[in-house]
């Protein structure tokens, strides 16, 4: 048993920033992560960090762009917090030594990004995330913050009152990947989930193999709702064979998209007559797939991204990393030929429902970064807005969990404010399948007694691992692959009712199959078979909630496109979708979006670029 004031789960940008902030606020903090911190996927972020640093720019403009980009599904108090605090956080990173790209006068450079009214994206070449991750890990080393690396968190220790708002979180149960030991980690003040993305729910993704949405699924099963899960960003420029990301920076610097006929389709086919290639990501992704579907794609699969005209000097200065990626993973030389690109799953706008301090509905449980939904991205995230979210909300959650007084939250959690039940009947049964042993049980709350809940959770985790290792059954890999394929085939950029319903059916079958899952590697030493098997359960829960949201939301907003519903419907849908696990019987409900900011109300406008 380990004990700390604050436990941070995950060691990417949000987790590291949260840990530093909690320590600065006086807490004894520890990070528990299934990867060593420098392996975290924040390191793969390329483009940059939006921050209104200059006199000609303002946080108000950044907030306006972000609300518009979100298609008016962002919550203004969270969006404004992001835009107000991003500049000081960027300067903080610079003061910690982060090697930003520079202007002639030695100041931090900024470049244009899609959907922004001012070139406010700070960056470090095309490897901004790598530099940010390493800079923050350096600070963690400097401060001597305890890191339990290669410990996989299995479940949260949350009490089991009927109403999730009455529940409290007292720690986590984790599995030491190196030794097979299961241990409880008691958190006196709070647990902060910073587990990142869930791209492995899909087949073609820019996300790492480790991005299985563990935190989102754990919090969900413990009673914290998932919010706006149907909003998935598909990045328009990923390499076709691997899903490796080609930064929006390429288009920011002037890169051009062409179809097979050599047409600059963003303009020539009227997808975005003003902004062209720099239109919002959802717009560009749909344009590319429309080109392919109408027979103008190359090899019926992708389009070309051309940056040759930028010249070797500029490419080497600002986009050198892109040359390596295109060469190593697609065999294309960006200096002499256009690069093949197609849309790929990139980012989850939704996640664990939180307020603007990172608090979930469960007492003592926080979430920050991509796994959380405050919500700053609404229906569509702007490029360059993910990294500032990590540092702004990581810091906020860390301070709050350490006990700093931060005032009253404006964003509500749970059914605390206005809410309405969804009247949607799914054709397929969803949720817990019933009849499973400890291996596939939901891992939700086990005890009401706050003192005993961690021990009870440890015992259950031990039973689960024991059963997985000792019984005979099905390997998880096939189940995971089935889920990924059905999600990419049917819950992609274009969505239709029939295919979404079919997906719920496929997921039901996968859940049934998972009841017989077993791990064939009997070892307690570095058993990745076991870790992947537990992750697959998380993938299943997320895929289902995501598809439920996609079916229920009968409109076209931001990244969520529905064939049968081709308009944004503000009269009915200026509201968030929430899915609560409800002890195995998922419940869908809504709460209104907050458009009232500090000094103004963001009136929904037509989102044209």
């Amino acid at each position: 048993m380990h004990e700390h004031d604050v436990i941070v789960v995950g060691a990417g940008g949000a987790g590291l920033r949260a840990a530093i902030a909690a320590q600065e606020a006086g807490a004894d903090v520890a990070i528990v992560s299934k990867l060593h911190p420098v392996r975290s996927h924040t390191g793969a972020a390329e483009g940059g960090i939006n921050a209104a640093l200059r006199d000609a720019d303002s946080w108000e403009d950044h907030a306006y762009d972000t609300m518009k980009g979100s298609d008016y599904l962002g919550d203004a108090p969270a969006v404004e917090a992001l835009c107000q605090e991003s500049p000081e956080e960027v300067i903080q990173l610079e003061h910690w030594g982060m090697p930003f790209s520079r202007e002639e006068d030695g100041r931090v450079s900024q470049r244009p990004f899609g959907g922004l009214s001012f070139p406010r994206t700070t960056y470090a070449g095309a490897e901004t995330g790598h530099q940010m991750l390493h800079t923050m890990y350096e600070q963690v080393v400097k401060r001597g913050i305890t890191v339990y690396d290669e410990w996989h968190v299995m479940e949260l220790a949350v009490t089991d009152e009927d109403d999730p708002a009455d529940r409290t979180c007292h720690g986590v149960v984790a599995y030491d990947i190196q030794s097979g030991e299961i241990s409880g980690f008691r958190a006196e003040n709070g647990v902060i989930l910073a587990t990142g993305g869930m791209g492995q729910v899909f087949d073609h993704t820019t996300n790492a193999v480790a991005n299985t949405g563990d935190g989102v699924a754990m919090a969900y099963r413990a009673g914290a709702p998932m919010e706006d899960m149907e909003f998935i960003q598909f990045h328009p420029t990923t390499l076709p064979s691997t899903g490796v990301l080609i930064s929006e920076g390429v288009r920011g610097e002037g890169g051009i998209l062409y179809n097979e006929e050599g047409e600059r389709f963003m303009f020539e086919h009227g997808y975005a007559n003003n902004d062209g290639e720099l239109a919002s990501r959802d717009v560009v992704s749909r344009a590319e797939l429309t080109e392919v579907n109408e027979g103008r794609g190359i090899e019926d699969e992708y389009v070309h991204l051309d940056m040759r005209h930028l010249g070797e000097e500029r490419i080497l200065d600002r986009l050198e990393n892109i040359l390596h990626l295109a060469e190593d993973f697609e065999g294309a030389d960006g200096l002499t030929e256009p690069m093949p690109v197609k849309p790929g799953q990139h980012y989850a706008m939704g996640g664990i429902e939180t307020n603007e301090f990172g608090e979930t509905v469960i007492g003592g449980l926080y979430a920050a970064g991509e796994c959380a939904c405050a919500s700053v991205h609404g229906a569509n995230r702007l490029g360059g807005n993910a990294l500032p979210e990590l540092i702004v909300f990581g810091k906020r959650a860390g301070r709050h969990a350490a006990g700093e007084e931060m005032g009253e939250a404006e964003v509500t959690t749970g059914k605390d404010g206005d809410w309405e039940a969804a009247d949607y009947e799914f054709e397929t049964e969803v949720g817990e399948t019933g009849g499973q042993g400890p291996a596939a049980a939901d891992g939700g709350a086990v005890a009401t007694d706050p003192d005993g809940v961690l021990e009870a959770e440890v015992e259950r985790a031990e039973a689960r691992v024991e059963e997985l290792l000792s019984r005979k059954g099905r390997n998880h890999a096939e189940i995971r692959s089935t889920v990924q394929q059905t999600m990419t085939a049917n819950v992609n950029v274009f969505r239709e009712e029939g295919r979404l319903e079919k997906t719920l059916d496929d997921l039901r079958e996968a859940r049934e199959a998972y009841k017989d899952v077993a791990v064939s590697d009997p070892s307690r030493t570095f058993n990745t078979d076991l870790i992947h098997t537990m992750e697959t359960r998380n993938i299943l829960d997320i895929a289902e909630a995501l598809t439920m949201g996609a079916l229920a939301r009968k409109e076209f907003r931001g990244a969520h496109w529905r064939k049968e519903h081709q308009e944004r419907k503000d009269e009915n849908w200026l509201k968030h979708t929430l899915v609560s696990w409800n002890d195995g019987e998922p419940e869908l409900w809504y709460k209104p979006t907050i458009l009232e900011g500090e000094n103004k109300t963001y009136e929904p406008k037509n989102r044209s670029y």
Partner: protein
Amino acid sequence: MSTQTPTQTEESSETDAEADVPSKGDERRDEKRRRAAEERARRQAEEAEKAAADEETVELKVFRYDPEVEGKQEPRFDTFHVPFTKGMTVLDALMYSRDTYDSSLTFRHSCRQAVCGSDAMFVNGGQKLACKTQIAELEQPIRVEPLPHAEVRKDLVVDMEHFYDQMEAVEPYFQTNEYPDGELEEQRQTRENREKIKMSTRCIWCSACMSSCNIAAGDNEYLGPAAINKAYRFAMDEREGEDIKQKRLEIIEQEHGVWRCQTQFSCTEVCPKDIPLTEHIQELKREAVKNNLKFW
């Protein structure tokens, strides 16, 4: 050429202790091991047959070892036949082998795009990142082993603690005595200075360099190329100032620091991020001399 034979003293004593009290779980696990071994042998035989009929198949010979699993305590090589697809990397082939034939095949990997630094291994006798090593460029059969000069935990996974300790021994964090006065004001850095440290900041901590270094193999306290490069990254950053630079030079010119390097360039050759490690070490030596520091 093989890599290293793991020491097994601790593991065998542990196994003995467990053997005294065989539980039901142990029996089930033994039974399971037998079944798994049979199943694996059957599938691999099938694949070998298919391979003989099909030229577009890749043959991998992969190092296997597990301190607690019978049959794997003695290191061995398993052969996997994987259908070749264009652009396939060593990591792709390993993942295919694991997901299709043997789910116990163990290796670290995450981002698949050469930035997380998890999957450095010894491929056909050289330190490589599996995710950015194209199968088409390798001679077959492809021999895949854990990184040399590190303790093997299991299969292709090595203990990284020593590498992390060395990285953390050089005060690997930015330090300065002077920040700009204005709130929200950044420190200035010239483009030339950023360019100077750029390559050194690309390190992904994969430890390929450390594994390739003969000196590090013989001197366990040697900081090694990656840690010295980390020191270089800060020592050359003009934002830190001269007094901090002085302190940094003192750290790297210690007994197990830069002077151990014999400029064999093996680290520079294997670095997957093309960092000129040897040059960086040489430059620090020159800086140390310039500063008239003690010469070991």
